[in-house]
Structures are given as C-alpha cells and as structure tokens.
C-alpha cells in the first residue's frame, strides 16, 4: 500500500502477515471441507478412524435420503416464505416509521423518537413476550415468527438518519414545481432511500433465514417449522425419525444424512453470500455513521 523501498524487516513482517492470513483462511474453511467430504463418503469411511480432505470413494446415500425427505423441503419452503414476508413487512414499516421521524418539523419529534428508542434499553424479556404471543393467539402461526420482530429499532434509526441527510432543498424545489407530498415521497425520497432500504432488507433476510428460536417456541406443528429447526432436530438431536423418512426404520446411515442435510442447507447461502457481502459491508458502514 504505502512502501516504496522494502527493508529486510519489512519483508519478513509481510511474509509473516501473508502466512498468518493464509493459515487463518484455510483454518476457517477446514471445518466446511470436512463436512463436505464426509457427506459424500460411504458409511464405513465415515465411521472408520481418520480424516482426508478429498473423498477417496463416493456414496450419495445421505443426499438421496435428504432429497426424499419431504419435511426438509416443506421447511425450506416455510423459511423462504417467512423470509420474504418478513422483508416486505420490515422494510415497509421501517420506512413508514423513519420518514416522519426524520422531519425536523414533526411536533414532539424527540418524544416520539424516545418512545421508540426506549425499547432498546429495556424489554419485558422472554417470558412476558411468550405469554403475549400466546395471548394474541399467534401460536403455531407464521405471524408469531414475523410480527414480534417486525421493526428493528436499530435499523429504524439508521434509516431515519439516512433520510434526514437528504437535502431539504430537493423537496422544496419539487414543491415549487407543484409536486405534492405523496409525489415527493414516491419520486424523490423513496428512490434516494433505496440503498439504506436494501441494507434493511439484507439484514432482515439474513436474520430470518437463520432464525430458529422463535420457531421452537411458538410452532408446534412440524409442517410449519422452519428449516433451521428441522436441521436442529436432525443434526443436533440426532432425531432421524423426526425427519420423517420412510427409510427411517431401515439401517440408515444417520451420520451421512446429518451431514448431507447440513450441506444442503448451507449451499444456497454459500452461493449468494459473496454477492451480499459487498452490500452488507456498505450497510454496516452506513450504520456506523454518527446519528
């Protein structure tokens, strides 16, 4: 980056840095490689002692089981639906909340902002929320997964600050040209807010894709569970019967099915995350700008 001449100590230092980073990167990936390799290996290789990076022989029995497992696909669908609906609702609500609060002229603006920000400092906790969701009759419905976290205060503040930075002159000049408020909102504010709303969508999407605790709390019916919960049952509880395979009774290679399930659930994320990463970084930086 900045050195023109390299002294000996600098070269030594740089080679240490490059080696450490290389080892670190390989170390980060190693566990993933192990899962991938084992998931494709025959049972005797999996159960035998030893480890290799590249599979020596292939057996896709685990994958076959996963692909025949209806529950995994149903839960996949539930997760996609949940994530999609949540993004839609969260982005809409966040913008609806952030835009008025970004207006300097809003009466009692500090109070209304404080009303929202206060919840960042104090919450009822797990038990009261659980009782509330139960009391509202949301149990065993997808809304119990979407509604309680429909707005993130932190993201709302980020959007508010972002919208706040849009020059007032833009609105004023549009008004001079005879544009009404709805028009200004749709044609000026909303398009300019797209980057920050994309950030909100991204954060919300990743959160909901990986969420499982609320599903464990509120969803009883197996057919309504999200993917992470089914994954938990198969991988962590070793509950292969819960996976609902017809092959469950036969001599099942539990281990390869577990690993294959893991791989199947990770692959979509591995495929999209390098692209998301760029926006995630941008979003994180938007968030760190002074409020």
């Amino acid at each position: 980056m900045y050195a023109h001449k390299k002294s000996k100590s600098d070269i030594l230092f740089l080679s240490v840095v490059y080696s450490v980073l290389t080892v670190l990167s390989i170390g980060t990936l190693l566990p993933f490689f192990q899962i991938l390799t084992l998931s494709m290996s025959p049972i005797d290789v999996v159960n035998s002692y030893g480890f290799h990076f590249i599979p020596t022989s292939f057996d896709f029995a685990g994958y076959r089981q996963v692909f025949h497992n209806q529950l995994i696909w149903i839960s996949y669908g539930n997760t996609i639906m949940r994530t999609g609906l949540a993004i839609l609702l969260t982005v809409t609500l966040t913008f609806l909340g952030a835009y008025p609060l970004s207006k300097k002229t809003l009466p009692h603006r500090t109070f209304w902002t404080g009303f929202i920000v206060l919840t960042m400092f104090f919450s009822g906790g797990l038990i009261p929320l659980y009782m509330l969701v139960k009391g509202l009759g949301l149990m065993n419905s997808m809304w119990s997964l979407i509604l309680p976290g429909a707005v993130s205060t932190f993201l709302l503040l980020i959007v508010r600050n972002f919208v706040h930075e849009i020059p007032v002159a833009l609105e004023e000049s549009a008004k001079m040209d005879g544009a009404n408020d709805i028009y200004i909102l749709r044609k000026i504010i909303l398009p300019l807010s797209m980057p920050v709303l994309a950030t909100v969508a991204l954060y919300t999407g990743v959160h909901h894709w990986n969420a499982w605790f609320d599903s464990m709390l509120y969803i009883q019916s197996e057919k309504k569970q999200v993917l992470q919960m089914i994954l938990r049952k198969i991988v962590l509880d070793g509950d292969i019967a819960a996976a609902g395979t017809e092959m469950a009774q036969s001599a099942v290679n539990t281990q390869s099915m577990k690993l294959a399930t893991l791989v199947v659930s990770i692959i979509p994320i591995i495929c999209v995350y390098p692209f998301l990463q760029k926006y995630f970084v941008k979003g994180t930086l938007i968030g760190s700008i002074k409020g």
Partner: protein
Amino acid sequence: MTYTAASTKKDVGTKGKISRRYLLKRYVDHKYFFLMLSPVLLYYIIFHYAPIYGVIIAFKDYKIVKGISGSAWVGWDNFKELYTGLYFLPVLKNTLIINFYKLLFGFPAPILLALMINEVSRPLFKKTVQTITYLPYFLSWIVLSGIIIEFLSPSRGPINIILTMLDFKPIFFMASVDWFRSILVSTEIWKTVGFNAIIYLAAMAGINQEMYDAADVDGISRVKKIWYITLPSIGPVIVILLILTSGQIINDDFDQIYNMLNAKVSSVGDVIGTYTYTEGIQKMNYSYAAAVGLFKNVIALIVVLIANFIAKRWSDETIF
C-alpha cells in the same frame, strides 16, 4: 402534510393557550405523518410496551387460569429465590465468566485481523481473506454447531486425529468441562471476526495517506508505522467500541450456547438465557423465570447506560 416554517416560529417563545393552539395546529398539519407513523407506534405498544407490563408477573405467583391481574402478589419472593436457590448464582457466574473471556479475546481479534488485512497490498488476496473470514457470519449457530461438533469429534475431527498422531489421547471437547468455555469463546471469534473487522478496516481506510508517506521518507519500518500511525489513528474507534461492547457483559449469546450445550457441560455452560428458557418455557415456572429475566434486564440496562455515558464523555460518536 402541509407545514410551514411560520407555524414553527410562532410556536417558539409564545406561552399558554396560543402555544397550545399552535401545537395542535402543528399536529393537524402533520396528520399524514402521524398516519404513517401509527402502524409503527402500534407495533411498539403491542410488542414492546405490553411485555413490559407483563413483567409484573415477576412479583406475582402467576397461575395461567387466573391470568396476570388475577394472580396473587408475592412481593420480592421470586427474587429471594435467586440468591437462596441452588442454581441461579452458578448460572450468573457462568454468564459473567464466559462474557468476560469473550470480551478479553474476542475484542482484540478483529483489530488484529484488520491490521493484518490492511498491510496486504494484493487486492485479490485481500478480498479472498475478507470473504472467507466473513463466511461463518452468514450461517446460523445451528449449522455452525453441527459443523463444530463434527470438527471436534473425538474420532473424526482433524484436531483429535493430529493429537493421536502425536501420541496424545483424543479429547472429547464438546463434553469436557475444562474445554467447553474455550470452545464457546473461540467459535464465537471464528463466527464474528471477519464481520467485526469491517469497522476497523473502514477506519483505517480513512487515515491520511500523507502520514505514511512522511514515515516512508524517514525510513520507518512497517511494524512501527502500525504502532505509531495506524493504531493511534483508529484509537477513538477502538475505545468507543470497547466501551459499548463491555456493556454486553451480562447479555449471553443464547443462540450459540443453547445449541452447543449438553448435560455434561451444563455446570460451566448454563447461562442466564438458557436457564430462563428451561425454567420458564420448559418447566412453566413463569413467575420465577420472569424474575430471572427482569434481574438480567435491569443489570443490563444499568451497564449499558453507564457504558453509553462513558462513550459520550469520550467523544460525540455514540450510537444514540
């Protein structure tokens, strides 16, 4: 949605009825803004303020059939159980110890990573390292626990295979009381280090290049440049993040710990979050669990307010 600067001006400096009338006028002027705001306010009332009301069951002997208002008051009885009972104090201790180690090792890790990445001049290498270290952040703790359990397995895990090759006995890491906390701390770092390094990298990108050029003229080594230029330049960011992170000392990572916890290590790994869940939801001990939760929330509130206060003192760059 029409509002004028004039109405704001009149409001300032006037008192009594007139100001109240103008305030009302301002609300009427902003009625569409409040219409926009109303679903969000409704959401906060239902899903944030209503549960705060529910907290009163911590002071009651809550019975499901009687409901919140019908159940009998018991005062501080549920809280007395916290320090007289057998289980809460060890759980509190576990929470504080695990978080202390996460802070001690987890906080410097992304700074070190960012410092190293910042020294790399090859864009492709730089990007690859960042992308790889970022990967675990995108996966859930369920997926990661599955992978970690497999990786640390006594028979198949690479670490244990290396250990046995070196004539050591394999270690059953996940079931070892001695190892469990270290695993929690190191896997937490593994998951978040790439993500947390971003803020520091951004701060480093903002450092004035001329300082490095000047140092080059003086023939200063890279290590010294890091020590005398890079670190001091990102110092304020480090301090603010340190203060804010230390506010998390009592907020356990339920997500991670619940998925990695097992009966063998619960004596060192059971934390307030997992304890509240088993007591409240599984054993339906609502009032007691709510008391545990309230205790934690109050402590967390105090610590966060102190942390934020110190952060504000240090610089203007606070989150709120």
